[in-house]
């Protein structure tokens, strides 16, 4: 599933419309969800602390696993040469200097850039000082929390350039931010399409040994050994049921007591490798 984290509604609105997301009231972070449940959008509020809190809260609330993808989509400032939407390959926290690198495994139509996250709006002087840098207020907070829950290839940041820095918060009105996302919506959507396509990794946990463990009179250690043997059977294309049935026919199973069970486990291993 895709979890999109956006700071404010005006940045989120074009996405909400594009994917026909419905409100999904939540406290303290409001959200929207698609009818097929594949996309959930969460409004984090402005700033890295809130971004961090929203990610951590959502990961716990929605039981986000390492198969899910977390995307931070928003607007940013950039030098005059910077236009369009970018996939972020390096995040620098402007206060601590800490860096974060999302894994760039997936091919999207977006260009790439580094971004610096700052606590106050980047000024025209900031953006002019490093023409290639982008500036935002959430990315590092988003990464700080996201990296605790999902691997770096499941962390994505897409930032649309809205301005070249501002000396006053008033310059950055909702319309400006909304239009930065809207203008680049096709590119952003094409990238989202890629992330939706990424097959979820099949989760192959331990097999359920249940009754079989009873038959072997398993201790905890024996149960774990039995589970591993059954996984090996599955992975090597061998039918454990056939071996177990043979052991039942030969009177080895069910085992009368723990010691007999240990012998049975060794016999299972032996027959498996025959």
């Amino acid at each position: 599933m895709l979890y999109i984290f956006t700071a404010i509604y005006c940045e989120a609105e074009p996405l909400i419309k594009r994917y026909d997301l419905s409100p999904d009231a939540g406290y303290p972070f409001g959200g929207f969800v698609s009818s097929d449940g594949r996309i959930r959008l969460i409004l984090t509020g402005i700033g890295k602390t809130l971004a961090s809190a929203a990610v951590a809260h959502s990961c716990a609330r929605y039981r986000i696993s390492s198969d899910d993808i977390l995307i931070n989509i928003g607007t940013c400032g950039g030098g005059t040469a910077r236009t369009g939407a970018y996939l972020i390959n390096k995040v620098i926290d402007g206060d601590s200097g800490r860096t974060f690198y999302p894994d760039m495994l997936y091919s999207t139509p977006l260009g790439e850039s580094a971004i610096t996250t700052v606590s106050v709006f980047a000024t025209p002087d900031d953006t002019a000082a490093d023409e290639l840098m982008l500036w935002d207020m959430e990315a590092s907070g988003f990464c700080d929390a996201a990296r605790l829950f999902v691997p770096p290839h499941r962390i994505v940041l897409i930032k649309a350039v809205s301005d070249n820095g501002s000396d006053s918060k008033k310059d950055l009105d909702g319309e400006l931010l909304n239009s930065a996302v809207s203008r680049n919506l096709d590119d952003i959507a094409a990238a989202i399409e890629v992330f939706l396509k990424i097959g979820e990794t099949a989760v192959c946990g331990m097999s359920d040994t249940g009754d079989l463990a009873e038959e072997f009179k398993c201790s905890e250690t024996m149960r774990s050994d039995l589970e591993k043997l059954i996984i090996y059977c599955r992975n090597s294309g061998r039918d454990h049921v056939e071996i177990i049935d043979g052991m039942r026919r030969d009177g080895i199973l069910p085992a009368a007591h723990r010691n007999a069970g240990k012998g049975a486990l060794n016999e299972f291993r032996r027959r498996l490798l025959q």
Partner: protein
Amino acid sequence: MNSDAGCYNKFFSHVYVEKGALEYPDTSAILGRLPYAEVVCIDHYKDVFNRSHQDAIAQKRSPAMILAVNSGELVYRGAPVCQSFGQREFYYTASSMNCSFDCEYCFLKGMYNTSNIVCFVNLEDYEREIKKLSNPYVCVSYDTDLIGLNSLTGQADRWVEFASENPEILIEMRTKAAPAKLTPLPNLIYAFTLSPDEIASRFEKNVPPLRARLKAVENAIRDGCTVRLCFDPMIYVEGWKDIYTGLVDQVADRIELGKVKDISVGTFRISSEYLKKMRKQMPRSEVCWFPFTNAGGYASYPEELDNEMMDHMCSVIGKYVDEGRIFTWR
């Protein structure tokens, strides 16, 4: 093919370059070979290489290259499970870390948290350290496959140059690649790892097939290179006996084994810690989920099976090569 196949970037679509590595000639050379790569500047290679929670299996589909300067330890003494072939003082070094091939059983999957590849561009520092050692035998392609990466990093060529300038230093370069041409030098051993097709096709992704590797061995011998053959690690699968007998017969059919320096044989064994990690990463792996015996921090096949595999292999090879040239890690 997976339906998500087209979603991945090409190999080395991204190159992370340490600030301190920017000025090195090897950095420019490697970047010149990857003109379309996105270059990301980093402070230290560990900022990318050692990140927590990386998914090394996912990264294998699109590994990144990291160019760095190694300011840490450059040469190591050989570990107890490594073979030293009864030679000199055994050392190994890692001028690159990780491999572009993808063998399911590769210990690197347990050793590192990532499939990204680090290439250290200060090779001259390695060379300086090795020159200080007395009578060394140095394996330079242990935590990587330098020949497999050579078209990109040029490091295998650099080690050949070093060997040719330092005839008193014995170098071994191990590979599963199939290079068309190799430089013959008396103090440079090319160690080719050969696996049966049945094993290679199932467990060795992106690795050249056996026939290509045999062609490379043939060429190397023809050109006068010192060649070692490695049937190591032998992997247990149903029918292993016939499979490995077939391999040796096939090799003997193609290669003049009398011209091979020596042959190494070993069964799969791995640090128990690495194995634990690999099982977690590869819940579907046949090789990793084998019910191994654990002893002294290492996982290996149960003794009886292990002995049977080694003895069988040695006896089949013994049909073609005298015993003194067959080495095992036991």
